[in-house]
């Protein structure tokens, strides 16, 4: 039971990171029907910025996170303005390829900056933990889960009740009609990239705040958020969160139990699990668990 609880805590922590990333993917996808393959690189950039502000510049940690998120939002804005905006109206496939190019352009200098040494992000909670029911509840996990929850609730309220949130959803549904209502669609796209960037920075900071620290391979965390959005159905906020939970928990349980249940799979099989889940969902429900059904009068 303790083991199970421990695995669940680990799973929820992972899910928080995936959720923050997946929400970014979904916001961009909803705005322009494109999966941004540059998102993991944007996350790496965000993590580096937080690390730079906190460790190299030496500002207080919370301020470093805010500044890092702002810097990453700016990167999102610039990417959209420079690389994506000129592509509007071109086939979606081309735009997706442009985001792959963007990924390389962002990741290469960041990898150079990170270098070979593992960096910390200056997180204040260290490796302290509480004990709950015999299991360790690291402060880091609590910080991650609470932050992800707060941001998710904020987004939910934002999309549901605010004027700009509604305009974003309207733009996602029909750009021309959104224009005809006086919505500045270009500004909506920029905002989507900025929001996604800021959340990716927070996700990257959390991903780099464990023992492994920030290194070039932190990037892999970003890629594992892709299964989460596909599981959730690409265009659904709720789906992104559920997808993140499914992927995060599956990964954590596998990491905990696989060595005793199926040792022949070798070590580190848990790293593969997100993609196994992805394949399984695509085989059974190709539009994802929460893909939106089309509203149509029959």
């Amino acid at each position, binding site marked *: 039971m303790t083991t199970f609880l421990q695995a669940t805590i680990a799973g929820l922590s992972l899910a928080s990171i995936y959720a923050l990333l997946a929400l970014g993917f979904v916001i961009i996808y909803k705005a322009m029907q494109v999966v941004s393959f540059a998102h993991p690189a944007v996350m790496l950039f965000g993590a580096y910025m937080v690390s730079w502000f906190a460790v190299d510049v030496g500002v207080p940690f919370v301020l470093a996170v805010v500044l890092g998120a702002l810097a990453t939002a700016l990167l999102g804005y610039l990417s959209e303005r420079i690389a994506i905006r000129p592509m509007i109206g071109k086939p979606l496939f081309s735009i997706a390829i442009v985001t792959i190019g963007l990924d390389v352009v962002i990741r290469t200098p960041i990898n150079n900056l990170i270098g070979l040494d593992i960096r910390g992000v200056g997180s204040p909670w260290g490796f302290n933990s509480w004990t709950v029911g015999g299991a360790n509840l690291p402060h880091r996990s609590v910080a991650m889960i609470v932050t992800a929850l707060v941001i998710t609730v904020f987004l939910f309220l934002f999309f549901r009740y605010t004027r700009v949130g*509604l305009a974003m*959803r*309207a733009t996602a549904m029909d750009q021309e009609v959104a*224009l*005809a*209502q*006086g919505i500045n669609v270009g500004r909506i796209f920029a905002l989507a990239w900025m929001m996604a960037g800021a959340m990716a920075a927070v996700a990257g900071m959390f991903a780099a705040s464990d023992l492994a620290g920030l290194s070039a391979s932190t990037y892999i965390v970003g890629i594992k958020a892709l299964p989460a959005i596909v599981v959730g159905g690409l265009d659904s906020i709720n789906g992104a969160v559920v997808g993140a939970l499914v992927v995060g928990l599956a990964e954590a349980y596998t990491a905990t139990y696989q060595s005793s249940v199926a040792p022949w799979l070798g070590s580190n099989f848990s790293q593969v699990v997100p993609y196994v889940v992805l394949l399984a969902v695509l085989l059974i429900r190709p539009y994802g668990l929460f893909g939106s059904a089309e*509203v149509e009068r029959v």
Partner: protein
Amino acid sequence: MLEVANLEVVYHDVILVLRGVSFQVPDGQIVALLGANGAGKTTVLRAISGLLDVHDGDITKGEISLDGTPIHRASAAAIVGRGVTQVLEGRRVFGEFTVEENLRVGAHTTRGDLSGQMDRVYELFPILADRRKSTAGYLSGGEQQMLAMGRAMMSNPRYLILDEPSLGLAPILVQRIRDLIVDINKHGTSILLVEQNATMALSIAQHGYIMETGKIVMDKPAAELMKDEDVQEFYLGLHSGGEERKSFRDVKHYKRRKRWLS
């Protein structure tokens, strides 16, 4: 006054769709713009609302002005902000939104007094008030048209542009929509009405323009247009000469194409 002068529009850099269209929508009036499919009516409306970009179209000559200030270089958002709102052809409501959310999107450019504005729209279209929580995509065609018009009214426009509001509606609903247009006009909104249903449009308009292949070929007060023999024959489905039915040969398309300016 909303004024279009010598408008020339080219799609994809090569397809010339409008060749010098000029017309005016004076304050407080209903103006009808009639014409067959492909005449360029919708393109005129896109040019006015700043939606040509979406379709890779460009204004190559001419000017669109609102009270003398040119607006053809302004963004779609700025044009709505200045009081010119279009209801696109085919209703195009946000299907997955509720009626109320659709209306809220329509009020995007008007800050403040959202509920007051919404009450005014509900007063104009009581059926929408009954359905305020329903999913817009499941409304009937007539209700969707009213929602599209209500959504446009949320921006409190001085000029309302309607692109084929009667499209695909039963005759009784066309009557309803017609009465609503007159009602909206009475409340002080000028209207530019594009229609295939010429009888309906001319019955409420003060002035009518007829377009053919990218040009205005005739413009007269609506009452005179109604009486014009050619208009009767080509747009109103009436024929002038006697009892005898015309043979099908005479209504062939190439025969029907008339040189209006000669």
